[in-house]
C-alpha cells in the first residue's frame, strides 16, 4: 500500500521534533488542509500545524494551497514562509 511521505522543514520541523514521517492516507482526508487538521488533532506539539503563522504546503514539490487534493504515494511538505536569497 502506498503511503503519504510527509516532510516538515525549518521552525516547523523543530516544533514537531521530526523531519518527516510516512502515513497511510487517513480515511476521510482528501485535501492538504484536511491533512493539516488531522495531524494537528494529535494535540501537543502537533497543534503547530494549525497555529503556525502562514504555514505553506507543497505536494510533490510544488507549492499548493489547502484545497489541493491528495493521493496515496504523494509527498507532502509543510513549512513556514521561505526566506532564501
Amino acid at each position, binding site marked *: 500500500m502506498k503511503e503519504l511521505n510527509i*516532510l516538515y*522543514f*525549518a*521552525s516547523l520541523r523543530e516544533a514537531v521534533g521530526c523531519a518527516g514521517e510516512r502515513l497511510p492516507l487517513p480515511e476521510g482526508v482528501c485535501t492538504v488542509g484536511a491533512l493539516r487538521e488531522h495531524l494537528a488533532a494529535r494535540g501537543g506539539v502537533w497543534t503547530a500545524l494549525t497555529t503556525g503563522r*502562514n504555514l505553506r504546503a*507543497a505536494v510533490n*514539490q*510544488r*507549492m499548493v494551497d489547502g484545497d489541493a487534493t491528495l493521493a496515496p504515494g504523494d509527498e507532502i*511538505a509543510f*513549512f*513556514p*514562509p*521561505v*526566506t*532564501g*536569497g
Partner: protein
Amino acid sequence: MSVSVQKADFDVGAEIAALSAGRAEVGAVASFVGLVRDSGQGKNVQAMTLEHYPGMTETALAEIVAQAHQRWALLGVRVIHRHGRLLPGDRIVFVGVASAHRGDAFAACQFIMDYLKTRAPFWKREETPDGSHWVDAKESDDQAAARWEGS
C-alpha cells in the same frame, strides 16, 4: 544545467565570463550577488545556516528561470544558491543573466531574485550572541514579487 544548489562557494568572475564566452550575440550580462550580513533581524549575526528542501529547491528555481525566459529575450541564465552554515561576508546567492540588450538582462535578474525570495524553499537561521533564531519572511519581499504579476 543553469541552476545549482550547493554547499560550496562559487567564483563570480568565472560565472559571469561563462555567460558570454564564445557568444558574440550577447550584448549584456547583468548579475546579482547576495551576501551574509553581520546584522539581520538580529544584531551581531555571527553565522547563518540555510536549510532547504532538496529536490523541490532545484525544481522551484528551474521554474522561476523558465518564467524569466518566457517574459524576456534571454540568451543565458545562471542561478547558484548555497546552503549550510555561512559566515558574514560569505556569498549566498548568484544570479547572472545574458541577453542582447541591457533592459532584458536587468529586468530578468531582478525578477529572478524577487521570485526566488518568495518561492524557493530556503529558510535562514541566524546565530547571534543571544542565541539563534529563524528569520521571519518579510512582507516587502512579497510586495516585490507581486509587482511582476499582471505585467
